[in-house]
């Protein structure tokens, strides 16, 4: 890079980044997802995964779960900036490792291969509540629920058993015990 000349602002020291899960309750109206996602892209924040669906059809509330990485300062900004959006009702935030929170992702895995391979694939998935959604004499579609990295691992394992297609959701989160998100 050639030496830049007209400078005013110089980036400060970088802090350590952490992965967080941000849960946002929003009015389910046109463009609300674009507002949330646009805020992330416009301000240069990351989105690792995103899951969104209506959770209360009477009050018209959708719940958005976003996995993101950032320094503590950035995570704080994400929460405050989200809180400023008009259709946003509340924002919750957790570290990925938080023991009080359950995170889950779902994946659909299509295996094409002979009977042995298909059986082997289902066995690989045993730990992750496998449900066989579709079966032919050449293929099988398995649904599993697990953590992101577990799905990452199993995908490598299943390569040898004829994995041809994967469809994954973003992570969703829920508190353990009787408590709910505030």
């Amino acid at each position, binding site marked *: 890079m050639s*030496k*830049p*000349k*007209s*400078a*005013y*602002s*110089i*980036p*400060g*020291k970088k802090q350590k980044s952490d992965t967080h899960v941000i849960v946002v309750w929003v009015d389910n109206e*046109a*463009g609300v997802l*674009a*507002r949330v996602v*646009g805020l992330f892209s*416009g301000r240069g924040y990351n989105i690792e995964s995103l899951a969104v669906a209506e959770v209360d059809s009477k009050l018209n509330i959708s719940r958005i779960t976003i996995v993101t990485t950032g320094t503590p*300062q950035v995570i*704080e*900004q994400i929460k*405050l*900036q989200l*809180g*400023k*959006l*008009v259709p946003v*009702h509340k924002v919750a935030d957790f570290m990925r490792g938080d023991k009080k929170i359950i995170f889950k992702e779902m994946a659909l895995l299509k295996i094409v291969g002979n009977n042995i391979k298909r059986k082997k694939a289902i066995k690989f998935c045993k730990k992750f509540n496998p449900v066989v959604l579709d079966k032919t004499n050449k293929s099988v579609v398995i649904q599993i629920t697990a953590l992101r990295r577990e799905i990452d691992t199993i995908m490598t394992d299943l390569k040898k058993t004829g994995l041809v297609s994967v469809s994954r959701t973003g992570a969703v989160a829920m508190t353990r015990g009787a408590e709910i998100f505030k």
Partner: protein
Amino acid sequence: MSKLYSGAEIVFKCLEAQDVEYIFGYPGGAVLPIYDELKNHDSIKHILARHEQGAGHAAEGYARSSGKPGVVLVTSGPGATNAVTALTDAYMDSIPLVCISGQVPTHLIGTDAFQECDTTGITRPCTKHNWLVKDVKDLSKIIHKAFEVATTGRPGPVLVDIPKDIQFQKTKYVNLIKRKKLNGKIHNKFSQGEIDQLVKLMVNSSKPILYTGGGVINSGPKASELLRELVSLTGFPITSTLQGLGSYPGDDNQFLGMLGMHGTYEANNAMHDCDLMINIGARFDDRITGKIDEFSPKSKKVHIDIDPSSINKNVKVDLPIVGDVSEVMLSVIKTLKKKHSNFASSNKEKTSKWWEKISEWRSVNSLNFINSDKTIKPQHAIQRLYELTKDKDTYITTEVGQHQMWAAQHYKFNKPNRWMTSGGLGTMGYGLPAAVGVQIAHPDKLVVDIAGEASVLMTIQEMSTAVQYNLPIKIFILNNEYMGMVRQWQELLHEKNYSESYTAALPDFVKLAEAYGCVGIRAKTPDELDEKIKEMINVNKPVIFDCLVDKEENCFPMIPSGKPHNQMLLGPNDQKENKITGKGKTLV
């Protein structure tokens, strides 16, 4: 059964309910039903701009000088995209604007229809919120909500996009319902505990400084009064950002002048060396902080702001107080009076050394410049303009560049809402249309746009608006034939490679004024300057004042590249010793 109104009628019923007196706009196909309805509403006057950007800036000038939201009315497609610069400008400087845009009929949305654009998509990042009205039944609710969002909390622009068929459809009108709780978006929940902590910090500080910003202006005239009371009660020095000018008298002894990139030596050094910094309604902008790692390293920092997302965004603070600055200041004043009734006298001794230090910095006289009797120095021109207009309750707008900084440095404001400048976005071409809006709000006051010849050409067409509505705005152009600030950076930072910063083929501004039907005045030498300025003030018509100034004057002081507050470049004499060196420069 209650009466049915068309969408266009509902727009006006809402505007009437919101006490709107002026709309700034430009008609077009998709807003024709609304324009058609205009004639039936005498209390609302439409100001026809010559470009939608001009309409937007005029509404900003109106809003900033009057404290009321500005209303903009534009058509779909190019009408809306032209308004984007003004909306973004208002977003950056927290100006309440309500922009109503026409849209192609509902059934044509998404078909790439004539003059269609995704207005809500385009304006989403530059408004606080926007709405596409899909059902006429929602229209009145949405418009009232739009005013609420624009004017509450940290103010800002909003946009309501109304398809043409919705403007024709009929429904009942739902009147404005005043609500107490506003969707949890208003943050005014500071506690007495926080105030007590702040007061404790103030009592213990020996090197305090108040750093105030546009939030004080936005909080209303009451905030400026409270600020004055707080400053006199504490005896603390005070400095202000570009946007905060006027909230505290510029000629007062406790005022250190503006801070930041082109701020005074005393303000920036005091910010750097203080032990307590109380930020009231400012946002630690990069033009204020300079190098962030070395920003005011020894101080406890307090940040009072209505927007929680402003806190800890750029600078980590020790005590954040989220709330309306008026109410926070009121609590601080009350607590100070109750618990520390002799604060001012006890504090005087404690801060006496600090004030001595400040006087030392002051004696550097950093706004000084070498005057000339042959060419008009731009700083001199502003000083003369100030001296000749200071008794008149003058409203000043500016464009963006050197002239803007000179105006901020040399024009002293005593009241809030008298200074309208594009600080956040830095929009060249802001000042002329803003002056139009200011003059609309204050028809009998003197309104001067301190301009540069490059900036003013960006929105010069609005002279026509000024002439049409008999708005005697004064366009005071500091003409150096260069984009001055660009030229200055090129001189100091790019080895005098003046790439594309000279404007050849400038128009003759006096003839241009005449072409628009206003008055043109030219000043060439310092001797004639005062007479010509007086002539300008006395003309009851719009004036373009072409003030030919030194072409190579630079704006000092300046915090150079990648330097903290205490390493400023002063005037020409200082430059040789304080060269900007190569290390660690990134482009901004």
